[in-house]
């Protein structure tokens, strides 16, 4: 069964910032076979909307993100930003990876300035703007440090500063906190929520952590066992700033978790059959 989930009451008329229409994508494995990753996915993300993509591993949520980023090309279907087809990656769509992907030969400050250099910001302006964002993520003192001198959480903060310094319209995040310990993750989630409530970027956030998704998102989109399609979505109406202890949120977490578990079980059953 294929779920059409694009028409959401109250959202249908809102202009889509990002849009995927009937997108399919498969990959070639090493034995020459093809592995379908995405199957006929249609998704609109509104201007300034925070969407979390969630699903079992291999469901293509990262693939969908890479397609929006322009790092991959779809086999079928169309992707657009502001109604224009998505081509190569560009600074209008900043990406946060699971690994901070800082350049190890540059200082933390130079890493952030690099993003500005790529969009042609003059040299003397770069330093100030980079510093401003490093301070926003509490790394003001570490501009001169090398990335390897920072902790995992600090590195991911630096990556966030690098992503935001160009004031991108769209922020795409691929499990950026997955490799962090639980405490650091919660702190960064809180800070991300804070920053986002000011910047109001359109945000697509991939995670497999239901609690994280519910805490951050306006809308949680659940993807099926691979090949990924969209099977359900939940609007999270709770006002911000949100609290991890919020009872209503906890209830949503339980609901989504139950649904996700069924999808994960399908994956596991298939893996065991082989």
């Amino acid at each position, binding site marked *: 069964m294929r779920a059409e989930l694009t028409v959401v009451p109250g959202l249908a008329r809102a202009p889509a910032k990002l849009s995927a229409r009937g997108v399919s994508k498969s990959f070639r494995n090493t034995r020459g076979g093809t592995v379908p990753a995405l199957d006929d996915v249609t998704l609109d993300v509104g201007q300034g909307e925070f969407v979390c993509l969630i699903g079992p591993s291999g469901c293509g949520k990262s693939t969908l993100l890479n397609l929006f*980023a*322009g*790092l991959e090309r779809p086999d079928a279907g169309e992707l657009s930003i502001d109604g224009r087809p998505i081509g*190569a*990656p*560009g*600074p209008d*769509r*900043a*990406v946060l*990876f699971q*690994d901070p*992907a800082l*350049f*190890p*030969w540059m200082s933390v400050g130079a890493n952030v300035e*690099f*993003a500005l250099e*790529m*969009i042609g910001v003059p040299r003397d302006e770069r330093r100030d703007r980079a510093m401003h964002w490093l301070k926003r993520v509490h790394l003001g003192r570490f501009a001169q440090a*090398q*990335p*390897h*001198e920072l902790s995992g959480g600090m590195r991911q903060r630096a990556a966030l500063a*690098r992503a935001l310094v*160009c004031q991108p319209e769209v922020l795409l995040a691929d499990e950026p906190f997955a490799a962090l310990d639980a405490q650091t993750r919660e702190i960064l989630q809180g800070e991300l929520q804070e920053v986002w409530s000011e910047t109001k970027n359109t945000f697509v956030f991939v995670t497999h952590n239901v609690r994280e998704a519910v805490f951050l998102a306006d809308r949680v989109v659940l993807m099926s066992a691979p090949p990924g399609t969209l099977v359900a979505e939940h609007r999270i109406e709770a006002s911000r700033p949100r609290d991890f202890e919020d009872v209503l949120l906890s209830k949503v977490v339980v609901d989504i978790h139950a649904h996700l578990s069924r999808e994960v079980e399908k994956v596991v059953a298939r893996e065991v059959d082989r």
Partner: protein
Amino acid sequence: MSHAKSIARQLWPRVAAIIGVVVLWWLAYASGFFNRAVLPSPGQVLGAFARSLAEPHPPRESILAATQASLIRLMVGLAIGIAAGTVVGLGMAMSTTVQRSVGSLMSGLQALPSISWLPLAILWFGLTERAILFVVIIASIPAVAIAAASSIRLVPPLLVRAGRTMGARRWMLYRRVVLPAAVPGYIAGLQSAWALGWRALMAGELIATGGKGLGHLLDLNRQLWLTSNIFAVMLMIVLVGMAVEAAFGVVDRRVRSRRGLLATT
């Protein structure tokens, strides 16, 4: 641990190794088992070394002049070899066709000891400077090319993707992301190019003398049966090698520690 203590701890095994060799050598000499014209004592070699440093030593050349001549040849040969090897390596990294065609030639070339080119080089260029340079160049090209190509190919794809999402493209992406990321591997290539080039140069100078250089001085002293001088020249070759290796070590450590690639002790 204090700085002085840590230096001492690093230094003593090296000093002990040298002392050990000298003691064994001296014992061999003192035993009288070897003809003293064939095996000089450590003291005699050191004396020959010191004398040849102090004055233009007979025959004709001082060890310093020979060292200078060899180093100039090495630098000229390496400069050409590294430049050519880098261009070839970049080509191999950027095009699969070049990798498959030229790359396999480079692997083959690397398997061939460069000194085996000397007979051909002598026929082509005569017993000249150019024949020796040719051997140095041919020794360094494949090492640099293969290291450049493989270090570029091993750049973490994630860094390239990150660069692309920030809008870096083509040459900008190459110049600011791919090449800097490949630097540690490239330095390793330069290091092996120098080592191969230095060996090729010594062998080349032994045979195609060119009238100067450390290899030439070795051969000259052999003809004159000056074993102490032969040992002194060998000592110089070792010292030059250790100095260059040490310089590479410093550069390599600096690059790596900046990137957090050094295990801290």
